[in-house]
């Protein structure tokens, strides 16, 4: 995902000198080509996320589209007030890019797990939160972000994420992208955790339940139309690699509540019972309850309730 992002950004930055890439001293082996080819549009600020974010906002105020790149919680929680005041309040066109969504940095430990970022960033007014599912979505969403001037948070996985979408995508701001159809219910996910949703849909199919699988990359602008139709079909399970508290599931529930819609909705998110647990991404997802088994169990229970 990160390589796709940087590749697309470099292609576009060659055509548009207002695109600036700023890093907080991270991106070894990832940002090198960009730095070599466009040194005038690349800034390594050093290890100083708060000053970097304020600087990015000031830089952007001169008419530049500034992408601030770092990993995990460093470009989000570490410099939250700079994002709130200097980016969002001042409406500066900064894009915060964090690599390492959820448990992407698995064995590196809890300091490197991004599990509250969606909740915190989507709580900010004037902030678009975008969570791509795979390299294909990353490419299309990066182009969409460059075309917009909104303060944006782009939450990326790490590397070698498998393709989830099998067909060409037509991205539309705020829209859910369906991966596969089904009439008995819907599994909605945000991010590379979509592979777990796809696997769960297969198990449900084996159990006679045909569920749609859909990626929801726009987390702060919810696709109500899609969700309303999905609710009419059957249960919705919202799956995320993030805390339960304030994440994608919460965003869906809030948005539906605002338009007086309700129905059978289940949330699958990280329960964070053991913050110090070591393991790779797949292990930690499972250990924290983001698993095929939990999705299947929850869906079947909700479907049974609806009878």
């Amino acid at each position, binding site marked *: 995902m990160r390589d796709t992002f940087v590749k697309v950004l470099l292609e576009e930055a060659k055509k548009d000198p207002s695109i600036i890439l700023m890093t907080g001293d991270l991106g070894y082996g990832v940002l090198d080509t960009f730095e070599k080819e466009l040194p005038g549009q690349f800034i390594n600020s050093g290890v100083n996320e708060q*000053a970097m974010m304020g*600087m990015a906002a*000031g830089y952007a105020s001169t008419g530049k589209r500034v992408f601030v790149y770092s990993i995990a919680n460093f470009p989000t929680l570490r410099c939250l007030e700079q994002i709130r005041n*200097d980016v969002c309040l001042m409406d500066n066109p900064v894009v915060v890019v964090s690599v390492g969504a959820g448990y992407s940095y698995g064995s590196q430990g809890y300091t490197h797990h991004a599990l509250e970022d969606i909740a915190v960033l989507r709580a900010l007014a004037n902030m678009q939160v975008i969570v791509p599912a795979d390299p294909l979505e990353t490419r299309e969403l990066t182009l969409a972000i460059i075309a917009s001037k909104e303060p944006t948070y782009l939450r990326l996985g790490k590397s070698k994420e498998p393709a989830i979408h099998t067909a060409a995508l037509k991205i539309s701001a705020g829209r859910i992208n369906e991966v596969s159809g089904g009439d008995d219910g819907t599994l909605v996910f945000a991010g590379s955790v979509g592979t777990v949703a796809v696997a769960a849909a297969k198990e449900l199919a084996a159990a006679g339940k045909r569920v749609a699988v859909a990626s929801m990359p726009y987390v702060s602008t919810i696709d109500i139309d899609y969700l309303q139709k999905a609710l009419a079909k059957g249960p919705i399970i919202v799956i995320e690699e993030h805390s339960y508290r304030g994440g994608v599931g919460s965003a869906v529930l809030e948005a539906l509540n605002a338009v007086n819609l309700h129905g059978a909705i289940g949330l699958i998110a990280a329960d964070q019972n053991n913050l110090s647990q070591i393991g790779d991404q797949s292990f930690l997802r499972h250990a924290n309850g983001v698993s095929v088994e939990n999705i299947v169990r929850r869906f079947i229970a909700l479907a049974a309730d609806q009878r």
Partner: protein
Amino acid sequence: MSDNASPFIDSAELALAARHEIISMTSVAQASHVASALSVVDILSVLYTGTANISAKNMKDPDRDIVILSKGHSAAALYSVLALQQFFPRTWLSQYCNNDAPLGGHVTSKGVPGVELSTGSLGHGLPYGVGIALARKKGGAKGRVFVVLSDGECDEGTTWESAMIANHYNLDNLVVIIDRNGIQSLTFTEDTLKLEPFADKWRAFGWQVQSVPGHDYGLLAQSLSSQSKPLCIIAETTKGKGVDFMENTVLWHYKSPSPDDVVVAFKELDEHY
């Protein structure tokens, strides 16, 4: 007071008029930070009478100088100076902090001509100014960036992060002016978290540094006249300057003047200036 026919040219005259406005507006609004505003108003008056290339007429010029008041709680000083220099109507001052009024208790940029950055949380102005100065330097744009800090604000890590960045990129278009009145929120700066040797710190970070009497218009202007690297002016000021009972005390960081206080304060201004 009636509106002045044209912007002030003389820093001392502007500062005196602004002092009257600051005392009036904080009294009417019963707002805090009158002493902080009186401390910094001479610095702003020097900047807005020609030392910085900024006026109501060149606000859209991309090469204009930029002034950022990072100590956003001194809003009354900036608003008074901007109104007197005709960036916006002077009547706005009398509605300071009113419901739905244009001017609030901390510096707000939205809808307020002349304000470049909303501030109020300390430690934000300098990184932002570094960003503008770096963009200008890389892009070949002219114009300097002046960031006015409080001394207490130098407790913030972002101040020193930014000082390193400015030195690394040799931002010779960036000026920091520190309102060194020696008092912060609860007590004196040196009793809170030692800043001294303050000038040496900035020098060690690679800046050109000068300490200047912070209420001397001529010396302030002179200190800002040239630079060959990032410039830090430590303006030695008195908190509450110009009104004896407000000077050099933490109390007037918070207290707002009563109508009686205003009468006494105006009388003192007449005597002192």
